[in-house]
């Protein structure tokens, strides 16, 4: 093997090592961090494994919000009008969180079927419905109280 070829071989090996490493890194990170969305109906049907982080969304059920007087702990229920999911959360709720509003929460189910939220999202203005929630409501056969986000 000529010295130049040898050098090239090293270079190719190095590149392969780099690309392989990057791909491995990428695949593991990707695998671990995909968060699936499930509707309250899917949760109620037991389609979601326990101890897995996922997103659930729906309307905050009227009269379901119970705050703890001493801390930030709050309990509420989201619904797609067919099924409900009880949620507990310890933290500051977003500005647009209120009963009847569509929200999405990130978190896990505990052993009692209660969703422990790490994050609660309620973006946009009061007419806005997260697309996932609108989809869940449609699947559950309910008419969304608000339409999809208005254009503009």
């Amino acid at each position, binding site marked *: 093997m000529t010295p130049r070829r040898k050098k090239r071989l090293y270079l190719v090996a190095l590149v392969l090592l780099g690309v392989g490493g990057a791909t491995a890194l990428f695949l*593991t*990170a990707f695998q671990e961090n995909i968060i699936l969305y499930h509707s309250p109906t899917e949760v109620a049907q037991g389609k979601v494994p326990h101890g897995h982080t996922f997103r659930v969304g729906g309307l905050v059920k009227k009269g379901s919000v119970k705050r703890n007087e001493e801390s930030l702990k709050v309990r509420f229920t989201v619904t797609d009008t067919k099924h409900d999911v009880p949620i507990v959360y310890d933290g500051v709720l977003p500005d647009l969180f209120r009963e009847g509003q569509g929200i999405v929460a990130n978190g896990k189910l505990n052993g009692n079927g209660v969703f422990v939220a790490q994050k609660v999202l309620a973006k946009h203005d009061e007419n806005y419905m997260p697309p996932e929630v609108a989809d869940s409501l449609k699947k559950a056969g309910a008419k969304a109280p608000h339409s999809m986000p208005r254009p503009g």
Partner: protein
Amino acid sequence: MIPELGNVALALALCMALIQSVLPLAGAHRGIAPWMAVARPAALAQFGFVAAAFAALAYCFVTSDFSVAFVAENSNSALPVYYQLTAIWGGHEGSILLWTFVLTIWTSAVALFSRSLPAEFAARVLGVMGLISVGFLLFMLLTSNPFARLTPVPAEGADLNPLLQDIGMIMHPPTLYMGYVGMSVAFGFAIAALLGGRLDAAWARWSRPWITVAWIFLTCGVALGSWWAYYELGWGGWWFWDPVENASFMPWLTGTALIHSLAVTEKRGLFKSWTVLLAITAFSLSLLGTFLVRSGVLTSVHAFASDPSRGIYILTFLGIVVGGSLLLYAVRGPSTLGGSRFSTVSRETLLLANNVLLVVAMATILLGTLYPLVIDALGLGKLSVGPPYFNKVFVPIMSVLMVLLGFGNLSRWKQDSVPRLWHHLRFAAVGAAVLGLGTAAMLVSDWFTGKLLMVGLGLVLAAWVVITSVQSVWTQLSDKRSLAEGLRRLPAGTYGMALAHIGLAVTVVGITMTSAFNAEERLRMAPGDTATLSGYTFRFQGVDRVQGPNYQAARGSFIVTRDGDPVTVLHPEKRRYVSGGKPMTEAGIDARLSRDLYASLGQPMSGEDGGWSVRLYHKPMVRWIWLGGLLMAAGGVIALTDRRYRLARRQRSAPAASRHSAAPAGSG
């Protein structure tokens, strides 16, 4: 009347853009000088018409003409006049008009400052930019006309999204668009080179200043966006890996790679094909960014629009631009290949590694951003990719990049040797390791956690980059007898490069320190309650009612003390705008170079004591993140003043003049 004039101006601008693209491109192809000469006046006229349309829209906003749908949706008469003006880019239609306006600014700049370029080449660049303009003007006229009327005319407008009623919103979009659209110049140069088959060091020297300017704006735009999100969203985060942020970050990464590969193309005549491909990619990503943010495919504060016809148009446009340019590249690219050799250990190799790493980083972000959209579009379910994915992939890639950056700073073109590099860099390596690890060991109390490793890694890398950057200036001093003389003689590019690299290090220090030592508390506080965070005591004084120009606010007061000494008083606000029921969080921040104290109000709690849910943060060195961005941009500005570009212009002016005399109409 005025809106109709605006409409007419847009239509005329479209005609000008058509003339500016078709005639010069055909002229350059067939060698007809008068056709090519049309490009400059057409570009300037197009600028005039778009500027008139922009002014017309501004007039509608300032006079609160709610018969214009876009004005009615994004403004109201209670809005302060500066927000009425900036509301132009507070919605979809106006943003596209701003995009087009910025494009015509860049096009006119190219028209005015390209007289030293060969006439054929300048005509092609302007022609390509004209085509892009045609695409955007048609888009506006067909699907998103900002002047569309509304009947019946509402008595009062809706409002500008309160999130956008802020100084950051005045500056962020125009700056970012200057950067996005600036990539169209790079694109124009690349396509012109492919069409003309001229791709050499001179080409790189012409395009470099343009791309540097665009990159400076893009850098400032990304940094501004991060700063704005930090204080406006009230979560204390400075980067969320939100698709909209990614949309601006991907062109930046590609643009950064482009700047580096252009250096090789100019200095050594290498990587030509690659540089052209990067220029095409950078602009395609800018278009993709516009598409992502503007078509409503994303759920985010930025995605105002949700009209599918717009999405289809932009996708088609994107397909034509990307597909067409890649096809051209495939057909013409190889014929412009060529260049000299370089050895395995050389600056070329290191810059190649830089490019590969930046592009890989961009690709991983692209995948993480688009994957959920693709899965959703295919009906395979709804999912999202969490921020940890981006951090996990991005941090290792950037770490390797920064290690290589140190070597790149000191390496030689063409051929270098490992022993020589080691000889120059051993002190830097030892110094960075001692400095970084020593500081980390002092800062981290518990040594047996991953924290020491993380802080150590960040600080060692930053120190390594800073030391080697200073060293790169130092070793280039030709005349060591007189330091001042030597420093003065160095080309500006050397200083610019060093400063931009130091900027990167400053940003990394900021990210490392903020991530590792951020202290936060989310709690319920009643007036009189105190909370202690990293030695600072926050005392909640309660909430007052405050009246703003177009909102009412609950204004909290937090007295911050340290060891009994007063530090500052923070005033976070919870605003409720008159026009709509959307409450807004306005954080109270005390900013220092060494730390930020940050308080934001959640909601009033039920109960008699006037308690609120509250977020408190102590963020060490968070300012450094944006300071670093500023230094990078400053480095770019300094590099622009390099004598080389002015010399190049003077050298070129002679042959260019003779060419002009051959084609009298070519003076434009």
